[in-house]
Structure formats: structure tokens, C-alpha cells
């Protein structure tokens, strides 16, 4: 095999600079907004790779498919099976896609230099699968369409399929494309496994159908209907996996904590933040004791960035760059309900949220200026009014207003400044 001629004649060589430029543009400044975990970096690289290379590889596939068609490989005496013929045309495009993904990973790796961990291989594998699937669709289209139609059709069509679902309010569609919008996940979350599985199922089916369409010289209507039905059947299988998903593919993370015990209390942070464990414990443990004494809540056995029940374990966060007041504010407000009850528009409980946040943060030891910036001067005034009460009165004030935040029939009390 004359390798140089083989590579030079492939559309992938023409497409490579276009893909590289497009991917650079798609990545853009996004690396500045990465979370401190490798999953977010992998998703960004994979998303940029799929967005930049999917359409271009599909167009290159349409070109190569038309080339094979003009070469009449299907009509000639079969020296090699169709899969081998296709593979030799597909390999340069695939090699280009892999190089592009590795290039994107290298770019995000620079931004992740200080973060422990490794790229998520499953995300990269699904991205590559999506690119291969659309490239094979290009091959199939190229067999039937001249390059003048096939190339722009695949370039624009694939790009629309990847880009347009982000504009739809029907969220599940976007989780099937493999684009993933360039973002997932915060360090306290992980990628929805169902979404990744759905993308893989659909990509495999599309790839299979495209290959069969390319390889089939003649066929009955039933055979062609079977080929067309393959992606539809995959969509039916994949749909339940993403049906109930929201706009983003992230779900709460449950593993990957690093814990250490101080004074009988276990302090846990995400393993990416292991270096901040000592800092976190030094800030959080005294605050936990102060909050427990002031609120009357039993002291927790665990303070964690992971799942917490609010009784035996309390939640906090130590993201990179967070100072002591940030950690204290997160720990304090973690004691309040995350979502309001369904009480209707007349519910007044929400009025208690900011004053209670201010009171809890001040009790935990946060600075007044920092609390005022977050909750506003009125809430700070209300918290100051509560802090002037004797300890038992403060605990009663907290208990009453906590109940007001959880129930519809209890109005908040003393949540305005005097």
C-alpha cells in the first residue's frame, strides 16, 4: 500500500486544517470556565471535538463515499470484503478525528494542570463513536449523492443536528446528539449515565444502518425499511433513558470523597480538593460547634461536600479560591431547606430565608461585611436583632423560622430589622 498516496488522496487531509481551526474556535475561552475536575475538561474537549469534527468528518465521508462510488467498487469483482474497503477509506478520517480529540484534550489539560485526576474515557469513547457514526452516514450518502450535494448536505445537516437541539425546550433531544453543549459537570456532580448510554446506543445504530446502506448493492424494500428502522428502534430504546432529564446532564455525585477525622468529626471533601482538606477542617469544625450550640441542633458526625442528610451529616463546599467566609456561608446556609414548599403565591415563608442565612453565617463566624454583601443590609439588620436575644431566644427564633421555611401554615417571625 503506497501509504503517502493513500493519505494524500484522502479528504481527511483537506478537512484537517478546517477541523483544527473550527475546534480552536469552538473551544475558545471555554477553558477559562472549567470546573476543578477532569470530567468537565473531558466533556468540554469531547463536545468541541464532536461539534467541530462531526460535521466535517461527515462531509469528508460523503466525499469518500462518492469517490468509492465513482470507482465502482461495488460493481467490481470482490477481492476484499466491503468492510475492508470502507475501513481503508475511513481510517484517515478516523485518525484525524482521534488527533483532533487528543488536541482538544491537550488544550484543556493545560488548564487542568493543578487538578488531580484523569480524563473520563467513556465520554471520549462516546464522542468518537458519534463522529464515526456521522462519518459512516456520510459514506452512505456519498454512495447515492454527488459530492456537490452530499458534501454540503452532510456538513450543514450534521451541524444542525448537533447545534439546533440546544434551542429546543424539549430537553431530551439535546442529550441524544452527543454534543453535550460543552458543559458538564460541577465537581459535586457527575455525568448522567443514562445520557451517555443513550448517545452510544443511537450512535451505534446510526453507524450500523449507514454501513448496511453503503454495503448493500441491491435489496428489497423490506431490507431498506429494516435499515431505516434501525436508528428509529435505537431512538425508541434510548428515549426512556433521557426522557426526564433537564437542560443539563449532570446528576449529584456520590463517590470520590476524601475524608479525615478531627476531634470526633469526619470532614470530607472531593478528592480533587484533597489539598484543601486541612484548611476546610480548620474553618468548618469550630463553626459546626458554634452553629450546633446556637441552633440547638445535634452536632453532626460528618461535615462533607458530598451527600448529607442535615442531621448526622452537614454539607459544605470548599471550591478553589473560596475564602474562609465563603466556606462558612456555605456551611451555614446548608442547614436551610434547599427548595421552598409548594404553598402558592401567598406564602410568606421566603421572607425568612435571607435573615436566617445572615444569622447562621454570623453565628458560624463569618464577617459582617461579607454577610452584608450576600444577604443585603436589611437581612443583616434582622439577623442583628435576633443576635441580641438571649441564646435560648435565638434558638427559638431559629426553630420557628426554620419551620416557616418548611411549612405553609407558619408565618415567619421577627425577620425585619427594627
Amino acid at each position, binding site marked *: 500500500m503506497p501509504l503517502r498516496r493513500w493519505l494524500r*488522496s484522502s*479528504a481527511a487531509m483537506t478537512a484537517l486544517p*478546517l477541523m483544527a481551526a*473550527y475546534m480552536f*474556535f*469552538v473551544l*475558545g*475561552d471555554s477553558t477559562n470556565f472549567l470546573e476543578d475536575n477532569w470530567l468537565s475538561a473531558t466533556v468540554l474537549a469531547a463536545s468541541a471535538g464532536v*461539534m467541530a469534527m462531526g*460535521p466535517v468528518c461527515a*462531509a469528508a465521508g460523503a*466525499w469518500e463515499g*462518492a*469517490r468509492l462510488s*465513482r470507482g465502482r467498487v461495488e460493481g467490481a469483482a470482490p477481492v476484499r470484503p466491503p468492510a475492508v474497503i470502507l475501513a481503508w477509506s475511513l481510517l484517515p478520517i478516523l485518525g484525524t478525528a482521534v488527533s483532533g480529540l487528543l488536541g482538544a484534550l491537550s488544550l484543556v489539560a493545560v488548564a487542568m494542570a493543578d487538578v488531580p485526576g484523569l480524563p473520563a474515557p467513556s465520554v471520549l469513547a462516546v464522542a468518537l463513536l458519534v463522529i464515526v457514526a456521522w462519518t459512516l452516514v456520510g459514506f452512505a450518502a456519498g454512495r447515492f449523492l*454527488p*459530492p*456537490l*450535494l452530499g*458534501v*454540503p*448536505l452532510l*456538513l*450543514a445537516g450534521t*451541524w*444542525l443536528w448537533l*447545534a*439546533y437541539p*440546544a*434551542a429546543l425546550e424539549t430537553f431530551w433531544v439535546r442529550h441524544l446528539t452527543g454534543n453535550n453543549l*460543552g458543559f458538564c459537570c460541577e465537581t459535586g456532580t457527575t455525568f448522567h449515565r443514562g445520557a451517555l448510554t443513550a448517545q452510544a446506543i443511537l450512535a451505534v445504530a446510526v453507524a450500523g444502518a449507514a454501513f448496511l446502506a453503503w454495503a448493500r448493492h441491491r435489496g428489497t424494500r423490506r431490507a431498506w425499511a429494516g435499515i431505516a428502522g434501525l436508528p428509529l428502534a435505537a431512538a425508541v430504546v434510548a428515549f426512556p433513558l433521557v426522557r426526564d432529564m433537564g437542560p443539563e446532564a449532570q446528576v449529584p455525585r456520590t463517590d470520590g470523597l476524601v475524608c479525615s477525622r478531627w476531634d470526633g468529626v469526619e470532614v470530607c471533601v472531593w478528592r480533587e480538593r484533597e489539598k484543601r482538606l486541612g484548611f476546610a477542617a480548620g474553618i468548618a469544625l469550630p463553626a459546626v460547634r458554634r452553629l450546633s450550640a446556637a441552633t440547638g441542633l445535634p452536632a453532626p458526625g460528618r461535615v462533607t461536600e458530598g451527600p448529607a442528610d442535615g442531621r448526622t451529616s452537614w454539607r459544605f463546599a470548599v471550591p478553589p479560591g473560596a475564602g474562609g467566609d465563603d466556606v462558612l456561608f456555605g456551611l451555614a446556609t446548608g442547614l436551610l431547606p434547599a427548595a421552598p414548599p409548594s404553598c402558592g403565591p401567598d406564602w410568606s415563608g421566603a421572607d425568612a430565608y435571607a435573615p436566617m442565612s445572615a444569622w447562621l453565617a454570623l453565628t458560624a463566624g463569618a464577617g459582617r461585611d461579607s454577610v452584608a454583601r450576600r444577604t443585603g443590609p436589611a437581612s443583616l439588620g434582622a439577623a442583628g436583632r435576633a443576635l441580641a436575644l438571649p441564646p435560648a431566644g435565638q434558638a427559638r427564633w431559629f426553630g420557628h423560622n426554620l419551620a416557616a421555611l418548611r411549612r405553609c401554615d407558619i408565618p415567619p417571625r421577627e425577620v425585619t430589622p427594627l
Partner: protein
Amino acid sequence: MRTWLQVHHVAWSALSLAMTAGVVAVAGDVLVPVPNLSQGDLDGVPLALIAPLAASAVLVRGVYAGPADLEAVAVRPTGAYRAGLVAAACAATLLAGLLLTATVPYGTAAARNLAGFTGLALVASRWRRDAATGVPTAYMIAAMLLGGGSGTGSPWDWAITDSPGLSSWAAPATALALGLLTCSVFPGRERAPS
């Protein structure tokens, strides 16, 4: 003439123009989100500005269909026929866009894009005829990535400018004029994919 029209898939070109007009009329204002670098966030480009890519590809495919060798030595002015086909298609689309301005908000801009895309493809056919329609598609994607978005825009990002103003017509009109010249005077050479 009838044979020429059949060989150059004029019916398919007309059908694709009609279908594109239908898409522009029905769903032309649907915004397609695009990662735009100059604005730093997802920006929406109306579908009406993208849809003419398809009609342009079918039109250019029709223009260059047929036996090039025979047409090169034909007695009839086949170059003028090709240019006439493109000019007629673009003029008809522009007329429809202007007539329906009140009811189809992006009709004129879509007609402008059809003219610009077709012109670009015809010019690109001098370089490589079978890759010609990929050029306006790549141009459109580049304009969406780097362009200024909605409003008057710059002369080069006319393809994503929804304003029907004359300034946004300069580049596509030039491209169409050069394209008509290319396909009539310099029919170019057809290269099979290597």
C-alpha cells in the same frame, strides 16, 4: 432546449427552490443556536438564512450536470444557458422575497443568501468543481462563528445579517456576478475526486 433543461435537472432545482421557500415561510424565524466567538455566548441565526444552502447546492449541481465535453464544443451558447439558469433562479427568489416582505420576515435576506451562496459556489468551481458547494457551507459556518450577529453586520458576514439593507448586498451581488462570469465565460474543468 428541453433536453438541456432535463439534463441540467432544472425541475429538481425548481423543486428545491420551492421547498426552501416553504421552509423560509413556515420556519424561517426559528433561531439555530451557534457558539459565537465575537459575542462569547450562544447566538441564534434564523433558519431562513441557512436554508438557502440546500437550494444553492441543488442549483449548482444542476448547472454543472450534463456532458461537459459535449457542451464545450456545442454550437448553442451553453455557457449563457448556465448563467441564465442561475440568474433566473436568483431573480425569481428575489422577486418572491420582495413581494412577500410583509408576511415572510426573512424572505429578502434568504434570497440574498441564495444569490451569495450560489455565486461563491460557482467561483469555487474554478478551483474544484465537485467541492464547490462545500465552500459556501464552510463560509456560512465561519460567518456564524465569527460574525457580528443580528443587525447590520460587516460586509463579510452578510450571510448572517438579517437586515435587508443594500450594504449587505454588496458582497453577495459581487460573488454572484463573478459566479455568472465563471460559469458562462470560463466553464472550468471537471476533476474527478482523486
